[in-house]
């Protein structure tokens, strides 16, 4: 399909900058109108309508211009756009799509119009600023997912965190300032570590090539080597300690672990989830958390494969500990939003189990897991937001028997919850299956524990769901609740349909993801030093499973 001369060849730039440019344009027009006519600028309703149009158009552009023509057979990057930006500091504009970020980009562009629709009524204070930050957040997250230059990735990362900080801190609930500050502290700590690692990489690359460069791979048509061509010592023998893979990996891993969020660096997350407005909460679970997983897979694993292999058993163990902890916390949680936060940590455990099995099946599972986590938890958070909008509370004990007044809500929430605990037929099942298949290969007992933790959180969710949806209507206020209207139904179905589609027929998506994952696995294998540590756990080596 032709996209016209202005878009063809620059489709990713259009996608990346359209939301941000819309925000800037709205700001400028507002200022202009204020200056010329002396009014208070563009009304909030216009902002909202223009933002919805812009984000929807971005989503359509991704579907028609990127996802539909994406060639699943092609190994390597597609729709590459490359330009010098600040070449003296190694910053290039280098964006591209492959199987790993394809669906995350789609998820990002899908979530924004849905979130705008979901908060159509209940954002009254500073509507224009709210929309401004949402649009900036979208562009920033797209920058994170699309960038193949480490510094551009980092800048986008920072921008996304700052935008989220304002969304939580200004439009959140009762404890919004506390939550936003906590979020900024944790995220700032992670970003600082990432920044340090990037500086080291810049220096190492400069020493090796004589020119600054922070592109992950060699850009097309250029002989400038990428970071993946850079040889980084597996351990600190012969080099400064901070130049070894071990410490660089730790820096990156800690930075990403904060946003994953991995226990014990998760403290900010339940608080932020509880305090954020529905839109912020949905964007955080659907997109914010996936940035960490993506960073690990795109940068940390291929750049530092020996260190990744050495730390793999520890991270797998941490993942399962996180799951168990979160599962236990979820059992006694009354606040629905916080329960979902713990559920996100449980899902993360599966994702990390797959990722750090360092096996193709597990890596594919992790990519799909990111997507599934975004879809399922995004849907759950939006639904809980709709309930909160009606009743002003999210405590399970305030409800009961909702199936009477709100059958559609109960039905859709049931599907979203079942999918989020990995019930067969949903996207959650497919990714958990792949992650566990890889997990069972390297650490069967950990994988079995992960299953038990998943079961635990599943049971607590069922219990909460049953209390919420079934039984007699105890609180009179619930009797008159309005069921979801068509706007709400449509936006939830936009998430439920891909969840079921991926669950019932995941192969088309897997076919697009797999070649890129195999490429990452190949890069890791190539960069591994022959005497480096091995990926599998000691137990499985002894047994000679593979």
């Amino acid at each position, binding site marked *: 399909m032709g996209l016209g001369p202005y878009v063809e060849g620059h489709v990713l730039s259009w996608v990346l900058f359209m939301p941000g440019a819309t925000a800037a344009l709205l700001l400028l027009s507002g200022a202009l109108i204020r200056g010329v006519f002396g009014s208070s600028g563009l009304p909030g309703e216009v902002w909202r309508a223009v933002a919805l149009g812009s984000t929807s158009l971005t989503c359509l552009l991704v579907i028609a211009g990127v996802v539909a023509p994406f060639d699943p057979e092609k190994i390597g990057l597609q729709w590459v756009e490359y330009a010098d930006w600040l070449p003296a500091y190694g910053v290039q504009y280098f964006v591209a799509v492959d199987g790993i970020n394809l669906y995350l980009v789609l998820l990002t562009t899908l979530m924004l119009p849905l979130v705008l629709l979901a908060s159509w009524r209940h954002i009254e204070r500073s509507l224009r600023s709210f929309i401004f930050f949402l649009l900036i957040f979208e562009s920033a997250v797209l920058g994170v997912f699309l960038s193949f230059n480490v510094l551009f990735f980092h800048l986008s990362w920072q921008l996304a965190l700052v935008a989220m900080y304002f969304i939580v801190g200004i439009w959140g609930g009762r404890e919004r*300032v506390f939550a936003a500050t906590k979020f900024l502290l944790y995220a700032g700590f992670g970003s600082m570590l990432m920044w340090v690692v990037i500086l080291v990489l810049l220096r190492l690359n400069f020493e090796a090539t004589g020119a600054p460069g922070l592109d992950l791979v060699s850009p097309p048509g250029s002989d400038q080597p990428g970071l993946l061509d850079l040889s980084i010592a597996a351990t600190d023998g012969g080099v400064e300690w901070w130049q070894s893979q071990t410490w660089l990996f730790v820096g990156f891993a800690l930075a990403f672990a904060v946003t994953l969020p991995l226990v014990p660096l998760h*403290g900010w997350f339940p608080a932020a989830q509880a305090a954020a407005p529905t839109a912020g909460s949905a964007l955080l679970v659907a997109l914010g958390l996936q940035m960490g997983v993506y960073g690990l897979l795109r940068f940390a694993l291929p750049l530092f494969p020996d260190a990744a292999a050495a730390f793999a058993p520890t991270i797998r163990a941490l993942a399962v500990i996180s799951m168990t902890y979160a599962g236990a916390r979820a059992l006694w949680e009354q606040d629905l939003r916080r329960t979902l936060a713990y559920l996100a940590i449980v899902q993360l455990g599966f994702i990390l189990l797959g990722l750090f099995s360092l096996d193709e099946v597990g890596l594919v599972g992790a990519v799909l897991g990111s997507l599934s986590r975004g879809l399922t938890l995004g849907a759950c958070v939006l639904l809980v937001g709709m309930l909160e909008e009606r009743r002003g509370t999210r405590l399970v004990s305030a409800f009961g028997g909702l*199936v009477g007044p709100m059958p559609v809500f109960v039905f859709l929430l049931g599907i979203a919850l079942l999918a989020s605990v990995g019930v*067969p037929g949903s996207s959650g099942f*497919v990714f958990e*299956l792949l992650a566990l298949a890889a997990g*069972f290969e390297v650490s069967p007992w950990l994988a079995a524990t992960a299953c038990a933790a998943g079961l635990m959180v599943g049971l607590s969710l069922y219990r909460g769901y*049953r209390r919420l949806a079934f039984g007699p209507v105890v609180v009179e206020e619930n009797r008159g609740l309005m069921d979801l209207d068509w706007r709400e139904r449509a936006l939830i179905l936009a998430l439920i349909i891909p969840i079921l589609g991926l669950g019932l*027929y995941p192969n088309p998506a897997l076919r697009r993801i797999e070649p890129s994952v195999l490429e990452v696995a190949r890069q890791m294998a190539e960069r591994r030093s022959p005497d480096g540590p091995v990926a599998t756990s000691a137990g499985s080596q002894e047994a000679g*499973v593979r």
Partner: protein
Amino acid sequence: MLNELAGQTAASLRMIPFPPLAVGFLLAMVGIFGRGALSRRTVAVIAVAGLAASFIVSVIAFSDLVFAGETMALVDRIAIWIGAGVGSSALIGDLALRLDALSAAFSLVISGVGLLLVFYVARLPELLPSADADAQRFFALASFQVGMSLLFVLADNLLLLMLAFLGVGLASALLAGFRHVEAEGSRLGGRVLMAGRVGDVALLVASLLLFRVLADTDAPGTGLAQVRGALLGLEGAAAALPTWAGSGGAGLLDAIGFCLVLATASLLAQLVFFAGSSADSAAPLPGSALMQTVTGMAIAGYLVVRFAFVFSEAPLAAGAMTGLGMAAALVGALFACRVRGISAVLAWSSVSQLGLVLVASGMGAQTAAVFQVISHAFFKGLLLMAAGVVVVAIKGEHDMTRMGNLGSRLTLTRIGFWIGAFSLAGGLPLTAGFFSIQQVVIATRAADPGLAHGLIYPGVLFTLALTAFYIVRLILLSLYGETRLPSHVHWDEVEDPEPPILWAMGSLASLSILGAVIGFPQFWADFFFNGDIERSNSLHYFLASGVDPAPETPLDAAQTWAVSGSTVLMTVLGFAAAILGYAVRPARLVAWVHGPQRLWDRVAPRLSAFLSVPIRLGRLAGKRIGAAVRGWGRDRPPAEAGPHRTSAGLLRLLADQLIKQVQSGFVQHSLALSVTGSLALLAYFLWAGGH
């Protein structure tokens, strides 16, 4: 083997589960998004049509399979479903259906008995709540559940099997929680859902372990036939398998077996929940009937028989399954002797009967297990239909002590009851139940002697006596004796149902008797026909390719006579005890019969209390752990405490004043710290670079 693995292509197989699944989906969508769009009658017609289509295709596929030869399987490969990885670790599962002898037998029973039950409910609408929306919900769920059960028995691979297992569990939970507006119904649905989820995860772990076991063989994969072939093909399986899950491969196979037992136990638990939570009021009879005959019972039977190849290599797991089965058989029968609700008796009876199926399969008698499932579907379906007629005739009353003498009005229903009772109790030779139960008893008698097995044989015989007792007690209390009807029931209005319902009951009654020909043992064929009939046990030979049946006649003639005699004797004893206790009632005998029952009445509550100890302990521990967990990493500050009261461990290490500054909520403090830290680190690296 190659033929069996490849199978003959038959695109029609997808049309077995598809119609009921499509109907279930359609009715659910109409019910949720367009309430009242379809009338009750239209909904019933659509549901029956879906199941009828499925049954017709099942019959055609079955005949195709028979004509294709015994070792052949039919395969319908629709698409690649899940595919990831390369080489031996690749995880590939096709969206594919496979019809072999075992799945053919089960798909016929599930679609056939499912059709009859749904037709019966359609013609007897009083069994369902009066609201049209509720009826629509029932037909949607019933269609969906039968469709998923069919998908389960036709699944070609482990992944599809899991999907179908979940579907069945989900539909069971929704049927169990049918009356969700009542607290009891909601709780029952929740329990069934949780039990199903435990089963899901157990099946997932079993499948992944199986997949791993076979990753090193020539034929790694998730296909059921492939897995079975590869596992059986492993020379010295115990030595060749990985050791990480136990001491030697046998330990791993036992682990897989235990997971499968857990999955089966989850189905058993669902039946127990149906039976135990005063099934009369919480779960409506039709949903419970489906679970007891085809969608719960048959699924559990199929699961254990399908994975018999694992149990044959995993003696510990097989022992656990036998033990579980025996316990379920006895406990189910004992509770059936005690409860007063007519449908509760039948529900506990199903628990007991599933126990017998597990015993048979655990002992390696797969044909006996399959035959028991099939005959049970026939006679239990008949008994449940008859019970439904009684309940409807007396305006929803379930308590048998408030019935009596109904047989004089419900004459045809009474015949149905007696045919079902004879088949269930296994007391009358020439019923399907007699021959199926006899094969179970023979399997327990023929097992290796030993303390555990030595207890199973008498245990099964005792269960038979109890079975005869409770079913005759049910009939006598409800259909004979004095009339004890509640005042709102008019005697003149109590009458047999309309002919279509009688036809449905008649079909199952015929099958309860004629079904005997399916698995007519050679021993009896030789006895009745002087050896003129060879291979009389058609089911045994039909299943030979799909499962690993034990020898058809493991006992010699004298032993077989002894076993048959014992079976009949125990049944007669049970019958006699019930007749003496509830019909003849001579004073001394009544006292004698009621003595143990009174004792049981006293013991049963204590047994229930004892059984619930782990649950109560779990709750207590849960509360304590909950209190402890809430104390960990308290990341929610008390509302009045202010934001600085965080317990993030890392920050605690820093000076208290600094934390207060940083967490005061002012961005500039945080930014100042970030900038300072960044500059410090930058300075360090510049300095380090210079040296």
